């Protein structure tokens, strides 16, 4: 179980900005959580605090009761935390198969790298020997990024807007894959997303706005609220829940 206790994050870039304010969350095993809310509300920052990319300015993070607040990214990874970047970095000279193999290297189960790519809608034959560099499109890189997280045996997997660049066909497949790893490894899955299909996967939805958790409850309970909450998605938000007509209907 992952517990976030009173986590705040302030960052100094010219001026001090409070990114997260006293976040308290208890995320149970074997559940799928979707974190949603307006852009710039602190969702990605929270994911990065969980993974250890940003040290919180106050508060604690506990994994199965163990305080991991001062642990490095590597230590957290080895304890079973995984994180799929919103904008994954590219690597000149590193092949797709090398990257996915690295990801799978700590997994005691023997995985077929080709199958992992298939799960994210990429043909293994076409991609295994390609470099994971700028020659890949944003969507392709994004799928490979997701594959690197699916390759691991994790207690907690965080996916930061996994749907970006994924077409509808593989989107369905992706949703099935989330369910699959969830069942296979009892992984707690945290997905940052605005998408209805992803929200549909959730056991619980967490709404984060202005650096605070404004709501955490079961999916059905919160969906109506999001729809009514005009503050949730401002009109500038291109893919906000409010603008999603299909979802609103």
């Amino acid at each position: 179980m992952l517990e976030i206790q009173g986590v705040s994050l302030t960052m100094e870039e010219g001026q001090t900005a409070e990114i997260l304010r006293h976040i308290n969350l208890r995320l149970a095993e074997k559940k799928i959580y979707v974190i949603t809310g307006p852009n710039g509300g602190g969702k990605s920052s929270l994911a990065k605090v969980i993974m250890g990319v940003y040290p919180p300015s106050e508060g604690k993070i506990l994994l199965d009761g163990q305080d991991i607040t001062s642990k490095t990214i590597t230590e957290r990874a080895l304890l079973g935390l995984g994180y799929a970047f919103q904008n994954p970095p590219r690597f000149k000279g590193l092949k797709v198969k090398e990257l996915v193999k690295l990801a799978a290297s700590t997994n005691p189960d023997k995985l077929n790298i080709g199958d992992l790519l298939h799960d994210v809608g990429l043909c293994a034959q076409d991609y295994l020997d390609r470099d994971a560099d700028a020659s890949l499109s944003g969507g392709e890189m994004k799928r490979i990024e997701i594959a690197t997280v699916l390759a691991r045996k994790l207690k907690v997997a965080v996916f930061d807007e996994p749907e970006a660049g994924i077409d509808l066909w593989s989107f369905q497949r992706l949703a099935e894959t989330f369910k699959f790893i969830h069942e296979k490894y009892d992984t707690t899955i945290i997905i940052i997303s605005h998408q209805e299909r992803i929200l549909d996967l959730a056991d619980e939805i967490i709404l984060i706005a202005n650096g605070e958790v404004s709501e955490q409850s079961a999916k059905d309970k919160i969906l109506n609220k999001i729809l009514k909450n005009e503050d949730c998605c401002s009109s500038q938000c291109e893919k906000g829940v409010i603008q999603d007509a299909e979802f609103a209907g």
Partner: protein
Amino acid sequence: MLSSLDKEMLEKVADLHEIPQGAYNIRRNGVGVQRNTTANIDIVTKKDKPGIDVIVKPYTTGESVHIPVIVTEENITDLVYNTFEIGAYSDVLVVAGCGIHNCGDQKSQHDGIHNFFVRKGAKLKYVEKHYGQGDGRGARVLNPKTIIEAEEGAVVELEMVQIKGIDNTLRETEVRLGDKAKLVLTERLLTYLGQEAQSKITVELNGVDSSAQIISRSVAQDESRQEFYFDLVGRNRARGHIQCDAIIMHAAQVLSTPRVSAYHSQAQLIHEAAIGRIESEQLVKLMSLGLSEKEAEDTILKGFLA
């Protein structure tokens, strides 16, 4: 006879574990020590100056020539002139490499001047590896000069690798391409400690529809310094692309001077250059897969120089 040290150096510079198949010439401390020729490839010692002539008969395919040089003594300055005649429509691999093992306090230096004539329709892959080792304070210095003339329809693949070990290097490469001749040049360089490396590459696209692709990747660590000069010259309807990338670390310095020179309105020349440190996102990504920061860095550098 080759000692175990000689063999180790050969392995580093020519991937040779034993005496190579095909034609070869092994030069040690300024003297040729072993040679083999084949029915299609002849190696002849030059009469007017130190060095050899390697003559590949036209239509020779699937053969290789290894010409490693090893320097295992200090206070040596070895200068050779090698000429390669790659016959028309042949397809061969030439592996040249220089390994210096210097345990002493005096300088060891090898300057190799390689002149290639790649005849009509021939394919040449030329691999040049540099390697240096030894605990002594004596400098290990390598100054290779490679001049390639590629005739009509010739295809030249050039691979130049120098990873650590060499204290000072000036590498000069000149390639002239005829009609429909094609060049793919890859350069990999890693310097560390106080090493200095300079690379000057000039490619002349003289023939119609000639093309060149130059990919240079380097890593500069510690207090090392690298200087690159590229000149891509278009004298005809031709295409050329230079891509040079450097990762800079610690207190190293990297200076890159690109030049594209067009003397024909249908010459298409592109130069891309970037110098930067390892992106922190790359490190974070690999660390989030369980690698330590050092392992992540090594993985990134190894991939970059692969």
